[in-house]
C-alpha cells in the first residue's frame, strides 16, 4: 500500500496546501488514469485501474481535514473507533446532547436548521484549528484523537441537518 502524502509529494503533516494537493492529484491521474490505457494490453489496464483507484482514495482522504487527521493518527498507531464514546469529556457529551435536541426541535424549520448548520461550522473551524495545533505544533495524540472523535460527531450531525433540509426542499 502506498502512503498517501508521498504519493502526492507532500510532507506528512496535517497542514497542507489544498492547491498543491489539487495539482499533484491531477498530475498523478494524468499518468495513471484508465483512459490513458484503454487501448493497451489487459495487464496495463488493470494496473492503471488500481493506481487510479488509489489516487482517488488518497485524494479524497487528504482533501477532507477530518479524514486527513484520522489517516495521520492511523499512521502514528492511533486507530479511532467510530462507535465508541469513551474518552470524551463530560462537557462535550453534554454539549452533544444539546446539539441533538436543538436539531430535533428544528426539523420542520429550514431557517433554524441553517442557523444551526452555521453554528456547527463555526465550532468545527475552531476545533480544526486546535487539531492542527495538536498534530503539527505541540504534538498531543490523545488530545488530537479526542478532537477527531468530536469532529466526527459534528460531521454526522451536519449530514443529518443536510438530509433534513433536503427533505424539506422536496
Amino acid at each position, binding site marked *: 500500500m502506498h502512503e498517501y502524502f508521498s504519493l502526492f509529494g507532500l510532507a506528512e503533516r496535517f497542514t497542507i496546501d489544498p492547491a498543491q494537493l489539487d495539482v499533484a492529484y491531477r498530475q498523478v*491521474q494524468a*499518468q495513471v488514469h484508465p483512459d490513458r*490505457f484503454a*487501448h493497451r*494490453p489487459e495487464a496495463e489496464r488493470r494496473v492503471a485501474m488500481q493506481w487510479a483507484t488509489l489516487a482517488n*482514495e488518497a485524494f479524497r482522504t487528504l482533501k477532507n481535514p477530518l479524514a486527513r487527521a484520522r489517516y495521520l493518527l492511523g499512521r502514528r498507531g492511533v486507530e479511532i473507533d467510530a462507535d465508541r464514546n469513551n474518552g470524551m469529556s463530560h462537557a462535550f457529551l453534554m454539549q452533544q446532547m444539546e446539539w441533538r435536541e436543538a436539531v430535533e426541535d428544528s426539523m420542520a424549520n429550514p431557517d433554524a436548521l441553517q442557523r444551526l448548520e452555521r453554528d456547527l461550522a463555526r465550532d468545527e473551524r475552531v476545533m480544526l484549528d486546535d487539531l492542527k495545533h495538536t498534530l503539527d505544533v505541540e504534538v498531543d495524540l490523545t488530545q488530537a484523537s479526542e478532537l477527531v472523535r468530536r469532529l466526527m460527531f459534528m460531521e454526522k450531525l451536519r449530514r443529518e441537518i*443536510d438530509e433534513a433540509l433536503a427533505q424539506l426542499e*422536496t
Partner: protein
Amino acid sequence: MALLQLSEPGESPDPHQQRLAVGIDLGTTNSLVATVRNSIAECLPAEDGGVILPSVVRYYKDGHTVVGQAALAAQTIDPRNTIASIKRLMGRGLADTDAGMRSRYDLVDTGDMVRVNTVAGLRTPVEISAEILKVLRERAEATLGDELVGAVITVPAYFDDAQRQATKDAARLAGLNVLRLLNEPTAAAIAYGLDEGAEGIYAVYDLGGGTFDFSILRLSRGVFEVMATSGDSSLGGDDFDEALADWLHKKASGVDLDCSKSRALLVEARRVKEALTENALCVARVPVAADGIKDIPVSVEEFHELTRKLVERSLSPVKKALRDAALKVDDIQAVVMVGGATRMPHVRSAVAALFGREPNIDIDPEKVVAIGAATQANILAGNRRAGEDWLLLDVIPLSLGLEMMGGLTEKIITRNSTIPVSKAQDFTTYKDGQSAMAIHVVQGERELVADCRSLARFELRGIPPMPAGGARIRVTFQVDADGLLAVSAREQTTGVEAHVSVKPSYGLSDEEITGMLKSGFEHAANDMQARSLREQQVEAGRLIDATEQAIKEDADLLSATEQASVLAEIERVRLLLQGLDHLAIKAGIDALSAKTGDFAARRMDKAIRLALTGSRIDKLPL
C-alpha cells in the same frame, strides 16, 4: 526519451496510423454514430444523408429486422413487433418497467431481465439494442472503409449498474469493442469544453427521449471533473408524448383504442409536441374508434399546462446535485442544454428561471453527445496527439451498499465518488459455527433495502467454525472507469474467498453472449472465425511489441529468471501466431498478460515516481 511511451501511453506513435474508433449515442428515441476525421468530430450519415437513426427495431417472422426510419414508419402497421424506446427496459425486470411500455408490448417475465415477445420469438432489451448498434457499426465501417478498433458508448449518467452492464453487453453483441461507457452529460461537456475552451463550473441539463440527467462539472486546465450528478432514469420526452396523448384521447372519445390506433395516437402526440416548439397552435388529428379521426386544436399554453408537472419533476434532481456539490445557482457559469426534449420552450424557460440566465444551446442538442463521445473515443483508441491532453474524472451516480440485518442498507461507496473507486468493509458472523454468509449488493440512496435496486446476491461459503463474532469477513467493492461494479468477499483469517462481477441479476453471462454471437453469425460462421482470428492476431502483435519495448526500456525491473520466463512466453505466442486457432492465440495472450502483470505494475510505479519528481519543482504554484 526512454520512457516516452510509458509516460505518454495514449500518444499515437505515428500520425498516419489512425486507429478507427467511434462514439455512439444510443438514445431512447434516436441514435447516432460519430468519429474524428482530420481532427474534426462529425456525425456519420446513412446512405440517405441523414445522421439520425430512429431507435426503433421491427421484427419479422423469419427473425430478420429492420431498424431506423423504415421501422419508425411501420409503428402503426405492426405495433407489437416494432419496438421503440427499448432503452427504457435496459437492465430492468418486469416489475420495474413503466406502464406505457407494458401496454404497448407483450412483455414477459423470465425471472431475471424482462423480455419482449415478438413474432420472431422472445427478445431481450440487450438483443434489441444490439440491432440498433449493429446498424451504426456497419454504417461506420462502410463509411470509414475498415473495421473499428473500438467504440465509446454513451449512457445516461443516472443509469444504475444493471443498466450500464446491459448496455455494454448490447455493444459486445453488436460486435463492438467497448473502449468506455461514457456518461451522456459528460460527453456533452467534452464537446462544449473543447469547442469553446471553457473554464469554470458548468451544468449540463440533459433531457432525452426517456431519461433525464443533470451534471455539474468543473473545467480547468484540461481537466473535466464531474462534481455531482443526479437525474431520473424514467423521465424524458416520451412522458410528454404520453401525457399529451392521454389528454387528446380523453377529449376525443375516451373509448378504448386497439394497439395500432393507440400507437397512431402516440405518434400524433409527438408530432404535435414538436410542432408546438415553433407554433402557438397545432391541430391534432386524433384517431377515435372505428375509422374516425377527430380534429382537436392544442394551444402551446394547454400543452405546457398539462406537462408542467414533468418539467417540475426535473428540477428536483437539479437542486439535489447543487446541494451535493455544495454550490448555489450563482456559482454556475453556464447551463448547457442537451437532448431533443430541451427544444420545448417551457423546459428552456424553467431552466432559465431557476438559474437566472439563458441556457446555452450553441451545439445541436441532438448531436452534442455523439460528438463528445467520438472525441473521447479517438483519444482512448490511442490517437492522442501531442498537446491534445485532457483528463476526465467522472463519478458514480448512485450509492452502492449491502443489505444488513433487518433489511437496512449499509452504504459502502457513496454517490458522486470519483471513479475508479474501491472500498472495503469488515463484517463478522452473528452465530456460533456459522459457515456461510449471504451477501446482497444494492444500489440507491434509501435506507431500506426494499427501496433500493437489487444488483446481485452471492454467498461466501466454507467459513471455518468459529464462535459468533470470531470471523472477519472483508467485503470489497471495486467500481471501474465504466462505472461497473465488482464485489469480492474474503474471510481474513483463513483466506476463503468469493468473487462476483455484478451481472447475474439482470445482465447476460459471458456464455450467453458468446452463444448469441454465434447464432447471429450462423449463416456466416466463417466470417466470425476470420474476424476473431484477425482480432487475436492484432492483439497478440500489439502485446508482443509492447512487452519487448518494455523489456528494452526497463530490463532492470526484472530479475534474470523473470526476464527469461517472459521471453519464453513471447516465443510461445509467436509460435501460436503461425497457426490459425484464435482460441489458442487468445490463451497465449492471456498467459503472457498474466506473466507481465507485475512487470507492468513496476514500470508504472517507476514512471509515476519519475513524473512526480520531475514536474514538482517548476510546475507547482508557491
